[in-house]
């Protein structure tokens, strides 16, 4: 997956990170968008947001990854968080069974607020700590299969599968969107918001006007 620094992209995909407090959502985000990991990262309060532009074939995809606090009471504010999301990484900590036991609740939360077509990947994070594993790979894989979710185990610490996880989700979204745009000429304002192919908005110039609600 190539990196592009310039603000030049064909699609914007909003992807949300969800899951219990402390499973490593923020480090997955920073590993993917900045290739950084922090052992002493702070509790996320409210919402954080990072982007990375990647190439899928000839299309430049700007991934907007949203990260939020995992504590229960923050779910009160989540409808705005989920709005417009086309992908989600539902993260649990494979060394803490409790974070896996509540995956179903997170899934319900997600489907209550997001579009039914959202692409969801179940992510078992902290695979570097396999000696402390509490959730068997096969169990999580079965759950994912039965619920129509993608599944991977990752380590934000040693980078294992982090790229692959985001890449897989983005590709899946891209495939869905491509099909959608072939079927209809109607462009979805939120899912496809952003610049059109080849368009380079200059400084001070009026922004791309395809965002309308």
């Amino acid at each position, binding site marked *: 997956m190539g990196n592009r620094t310039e603000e030049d992209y064909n699609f914007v995909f909003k992807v949300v990170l969800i899951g219990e*407090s402390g499973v490593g959502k923020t480090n997955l985000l920073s590993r993917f968008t900045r290739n950084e990991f922090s052992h002493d990262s702070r509790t996320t309060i409210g919402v954080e*947001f990072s982007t990375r532009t990647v190439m899928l074939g000839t299309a430049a995809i700007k991934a907007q990854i949203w990260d939020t606090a995992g*504590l229960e*009471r923050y779910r*009160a504010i989540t409808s705005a*968080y989920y709005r417009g999301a086309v992908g989600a990484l539902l993260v649990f900590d494979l060394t803490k069974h409790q974070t896996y036991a509540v995956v179903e609740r997170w899934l319900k939360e997600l489907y209550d607020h997001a579009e039914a077509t959202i692409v969801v990947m179940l992510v078992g994070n902290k695979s570097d700590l396999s000696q402390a594993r509490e959730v068997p790979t096969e169990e999580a894989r079965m759950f994912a299969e039965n619920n129509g979710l993608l599944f991977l185990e990752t380590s934000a610490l040693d980078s294992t599968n982090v790229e692959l996880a985001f890449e897989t989700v983005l590709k899946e979204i891209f495939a869905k969107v491509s099909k959608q745009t072939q079927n209809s000429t109607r462009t979805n304002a939120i899912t496809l*918001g952003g610049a059109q192919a080849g368009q380079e908005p200059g400084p001070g110039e009026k922004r791309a006007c395809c*965002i309308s609600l």
Partner: protein
Amino acid sequence: MSGSHTPSASGPFSALTPSMWPQEILAKSTQKEESVEQPEFSYDEFGFRVDKEDGANPGSGRPSGVPLMEDPPQRLRWQAHLEFTHNHDVGDLTWDKIAVSLPRSEKLRSLVLAGIPHSMRPQLWMRLSGALQKKRNSELSYREMVKNSSNDETIAAKQIEKDLLRTMPSNVCFASVSSIGVPRLRRVLRALAWLYPEIGYCQGTGMVAACLLLFLEEEDAFWMMCAIIEDLLPASYFSTTLLGVQTDQRVLRHLIVQYLPRLDKLLQEHDIELSLITLHWFLTAFASVVHIKLLLRLWDLFFYEGSLVLFQTTLGMLRLKEEELIQSENSASIFNTLSDIPSQIEDAELLLGEAMRLAGSLTDVAVETQRRKHLAYLIADQGQLLGTSATTNLSQVGP
């Protein structure tokens, strides 16, 4: 403190309350001449680690590398004011002779707005916020509450444990289990969860408490938290529904229509949900959001005037960056610019000046009126989400 090392004037750790001084590190630094070893990290006067090449740590206290200094004339003005307002007229003025709460006046407000001398903050924050009054009037002592909550095996206690080291990891006082501030933070948060069961533990309060613990002794930090929860912020700010802080995001949105119409138009055009960004500014009263030196100035005013200051400050910040926002190319860059605003503002004078010019006339009454209205809308909205039975009851207060 016995056999203790003292930080050098405006050197590392010098702005901390003395009981928080990291003795081990101070001891090492006094032996430095003899040892060839360089210390692992350097620290600023607030105890935040300073990376050599990067001063942009969001928690860091030194945005421009200038250490915190007290302005002698400002200190004199404060001293004069305190002497003038206190009724006894003999002997030296000491803190125990100064009233538990200070009479409110235009003069006091202008002093607070210009900034409290750092060495006076612990005493003045307690008096301005009403925390000292609470401490004196309480039937239960902090020690009893700590005792009552120390064996709790509640969900709150578990969540507190999880977050202790994730609250202020870049500060020497909270960086590891053996750091001096960690047991204090644990006790304060547990006691709060015990005292306010409807709140329990809310992520965000930890940030506020940790910042207070840098400057105040544990018991005073606890009573400051009580003043914030009970008096300075409206009800339900930290409760499980977060209704109070959510309401304030709606009030803020309304105030933007009124005070910053161009920004309002921009947010509408790009369908940007501002509350996703500002909710945690309000929830932490800017702790962990702005540089700590700026935070101290905002808190001086916040402890005197309460939540009004959160609106005025936010409006001031948005005003300072309004042009930049309007020039932004797309909704993603607007969103990012908005998120970055607090960490980019260093100059307290500039921010407070702008905030007061723009929204100095905003009153508590005006904010309260909006709060009542928006709380009703919010409850109505949530009733609709909860299902039909709730909707029929709540529709009467809906828009």
